[in-house]
């Protein structure tokens, strides 16, 4: 029998959460004070969880590797956060958000989790506004909304192109308040390097103090991993430089199953690679697709002329432009989901229509909305009769600036080109990982007492995440789910006294960490950590990226295993263990990525179907209206892949069957 029990409550879908919530055992206030919770991560999920649990009375410790919890990678989220408020009166509802998310995820997410997410989405906005998060407003003082991909309603709340920053600073302020009140102890510049388990339960962590290199032992009745996504396995991604899989991977090796590791989101609108020196890729928010139209020239000779610098975008006549998303998907146009938009860009570039030197870029053009939508509107408001094209451009530019100013500035800084005058050049890049640690309905992993929240878990987005849903999920997990569900476990722990960290389990875990650190220094090889990271990234991008196939994946697994060997024989880690040492931090992270990369390819190889962000070339529609589109195989693959770590290079697959009781499954069409 499978070891997977998703613990989904009984009852009709729309009553499950409400009913379950009121039956979860409670922990009384006096007992809460003697229960300790370790929270690893201070992003939206971690900060929200830590603040809420501390407010409830638990004793909380928070860890992050940055110098301040405010710098967690959630800070970089740009476009917005979804919530089923229906403030725009455009027919939105909890059901519709639920439905869009399941469909967007290509029918590979759990109904019950997603419904709960949609149910609590509204409370998130209420909470954030109460904290003083300055979300965008209309002149009447009410909150403003915009659209994101894969939906036909306006349910996305935002703060210019800095939504993640504002939401995180809200959660961070709640966290710092609890720090000030003495309910949370904060450990910044600390990296968790091991989970400690005693009698099969998670009981704490080993963390390295990044300033002096000391290894520390921290006990917790429960441990929450809120450690973000693992997109950096590709080396180049939109994630921050420090984003990593280490915490999740350590948990995996201690018994936590890894769910759907191969589900990766490649975001369609990022600034293209400019050279070998590239250290990361920069996202241009999906919200830009509200006002930008994506195109390439219809004629190859135009593409060549542009690449050679002989023509510019504005020289291409309207009739010679191929707005390929509008052409292929008239119902959703430029607002198709990310996986669909990315593959369409790749298709055009592979066919030779790319428009930059590398042939891997398409245009994202604002000219028409800038002039004819916003320019005209403003001209009307300002009473300007028969405005000229230049006037329309100037008027519209102001509106666009207010909506997306920081993104346009960022683009200009990076590329040196002015996107108000020229269309942006964009190309897909690795952005988000839907896969992650497998969790049940309570967000508990297969290790009792060990939880995973936010991007670190696999839970709500199936095979493809819709835009503006990660912020929603991180905050839902932290503010509104874990504070309830953790009671189911901790109510049975009230008699467990804090275990002294002299316990042998802590001793062994610390020794394991120490040994590995010493190993890094003992190799004294010739190649830098980055060297290996870049090579891994290339294998992953070429063979486990936007399109995957049997032969390629098998090759990738071989290549990664060889690379693992090379790494452990030839890496050079400079400096010492007992000091501030970023190279050592990187070495640990890349060593874990090397193992994760292998598992991602194994998972991708196993899943011989296309779904969401996972596109297997062998599984595409071959005829009719849907020709070339991804082809799911529900008969054989309607399950979550949950991998158990057995030993190095050896993983065992467990399957959690997905049952759709409410939603009617169909071919996902955005035509």
């Amino acid at each position, binding site marked *: 029998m499978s070891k997977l029990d998703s613990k989904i409550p009984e009852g009709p879908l729309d009553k499950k959460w409400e009913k379950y919530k009121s039956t979860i055992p409670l922990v009384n206030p006096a007992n809460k004070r003697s229960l300790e919770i370790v929270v690893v991560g201070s992003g939206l999920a971690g900060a929200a969880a830590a603040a*809420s649990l501390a407010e409830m009375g638990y004793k909380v410790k928070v860890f992050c590797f*940055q*110098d*301040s*919890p405010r*710098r967690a990678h959630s*800070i*970089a989220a740009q476009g917005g956060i979804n919530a089923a*408020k229906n*403030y725009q009166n455009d027919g939105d509802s909890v059901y519709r958000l639920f439905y869009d998310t399941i469909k967007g995820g290509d029918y590979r997410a759990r109904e019950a989790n997603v419904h709960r997410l949609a149910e609590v989405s509204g*409370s998130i906005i*209420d*909470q*954030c506004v*109460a*904290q*003083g998060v*300055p*979300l*965008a*407003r*209309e002149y*009447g*003082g009410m*909150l403003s909304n915009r659209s994101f991909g894969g939906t036909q309603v306006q349910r996305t709340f935002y*703060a210019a192109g800095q939504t993640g*920053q*504002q939401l995180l*600073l809200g959660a*961070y*302020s*709640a966290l*710092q*308040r609890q*720090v*000030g009140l003495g309910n949370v102890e*904060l450990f*910044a510049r600390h990296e968790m390097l091991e989970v400690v388990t005693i009698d099969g339960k998670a009981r704490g962590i080993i963390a390295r103090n990044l300033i002096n290199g000391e290894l520390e032992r921290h006990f917790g009745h429960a441990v929450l991993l809120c450690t973000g996504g693992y997109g950096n396995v590709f080396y180049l991604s939109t994630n*921050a*430089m420090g984003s990593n899989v280490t915490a999740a991977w350590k948990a995996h090796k201690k018994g936590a199953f890894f769910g759907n590791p191969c589900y990766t989101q490649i975001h369609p609108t990022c600034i293209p690679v400019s*050279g*070998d*020196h*590239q*250290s*990361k890729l*920069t996202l241009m928010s999906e919200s830009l697709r509200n006002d930008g139209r994506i195109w390439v020239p219809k004629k190859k000779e135009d593409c060549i002329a542009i690449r050679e610098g002989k023509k510019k975008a504005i020289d291409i006549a309207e009739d010679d432009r191929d707005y390929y998303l509008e052409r292929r998907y008239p119902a959703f146009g430029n607002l198709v989901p990310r996986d669909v938009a990315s593959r369409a860009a790749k298709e055009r570039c592979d066919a030779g229509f790319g428009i930059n030197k590398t042939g891997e870029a398409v245009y994202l053009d604002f000219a028409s909305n800038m002039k004819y939508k916003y320019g005209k509107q403003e001209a009307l408001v300002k009473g300007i009769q028969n405005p000229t094209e230049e006037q329309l451009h100037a008027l519209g530019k102001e509106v666009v600036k207010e909506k997306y100013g920081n993104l346009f*500035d960022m683009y200009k*800084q*990076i590329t040196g080109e002015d996107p108000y005058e020229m269309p942006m050049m964009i190309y897909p890049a690795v952005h988000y990982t839907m896969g992650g640690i497998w969790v049940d309905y309570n967000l508990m992993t297969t290790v009792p007492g060990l939880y995973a929240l936010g991007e670190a878990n696999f839970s709500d987005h199936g095979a493809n995440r819709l835009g503006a849903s990660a912020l929603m999920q991180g905050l839902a997990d932290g*503010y*509104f789910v874990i504070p309830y569900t953790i009671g189911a476990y901790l109510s049975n722990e009230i008699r467990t006294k804090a275990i002294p960290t002299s316990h042998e389990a802590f001793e062994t875990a610390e020794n394991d960490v120490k040994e590995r650190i010493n190993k890094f220094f003992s190799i004294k090889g010739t190649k*830098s950590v980055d060297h290996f990271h870049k090579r891994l990234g290339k294998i992953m991008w070429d063979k486990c990226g936007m399109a995957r196939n049997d032969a390629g994946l098998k090759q990738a697994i071989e290549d990664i295993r060889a690379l693992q060997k090379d790494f452990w024989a030839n890496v*050079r880690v*400079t*400096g010492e263990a007992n*000091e*501030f*040492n*970023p190279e050592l931090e990187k070495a640990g992270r890349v060593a874990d990525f090397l193992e994760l990369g292998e598992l991602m390819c194994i998972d991708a190889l196993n899943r011989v179907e296309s779904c969401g962000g996972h596109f297997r070339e062998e599984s595409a529609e071959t005829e009719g209206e849907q020709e070339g589109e991804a082809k799911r195989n529900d008969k054989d693959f309607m399950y979550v892949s949950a991998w158990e770590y057995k030993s190095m290079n050896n993983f065992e697959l467990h399957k959690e069957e997905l049952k759709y009781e409410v939603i009617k499954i169909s071919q996902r069409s955005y035509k």
Partner: protein
Amino acid sequence: MSGNMNLSLKVWRQKNAEQKGELVTYPVSDISPDMSFLEMFDVLNEKLITEGQEPVAFDHDCREGICGACSMHINGRAHGPNNGVTTCQLHMRSFKDGDTIVVEPWRAAAFPVVKDLVVDRSAFDRIISKGGYISVNTGNAQDANNLPVPKVDADKAFEAAACIGCGACVATCKNGSAMLFVSAKVSQLSLLPQGKAEAKERVISMVNQMDEEGFGSCTNTGACEIECPKGISLENIARLNREFAVATAASEK
């Protein structure tokens, strides 16, 4: 695709907080104008590692101007020669072939050096803990649209909230004052109706913590506003001063 710029870097090296530091000169070659300043440091570090030397430690994470981690004092200016950009957003096209570039950490009494170009800015977090929030527990909130906020106020609050906590304002101030940072948070919260209830205690307690952390006092030189990568305006300092005056007057009654 490497570039064609050759530069001479003078970089602050300091092993840890206890030991003394010094400027060390490193030549770097084949730098492309499309590289960011931090990517140029990646090139330097890669070279140092292959030569068996220790790479330069510096803070960075998002590399897109939003996390506030990067913090280099470049040729005497916090975040380098351009206005309105962080170190990670500075690109090498802002420099010329043959340039000598001096790179130092933030210098301020309240920001001790950790190593090389890395400093300790945890004082900022402690200031926020003393009132940089609205006291609302999870679950306490009413419906978000029950409280309309005039767009002008919301926009102003947002502009103040855009602070990334990088500390350039402190590093650039001859007094090492944190007024711009603190005033940005005080302003954001006092501009919003939600923040009014605690406004008085907030400003007093945040200012007290700021003093306790060893930040200098503000003498209105205005240097901070110029170097702030997020355009946080001096208006915020004026607002803090007003709030502070009102709050202290009220508490004396």
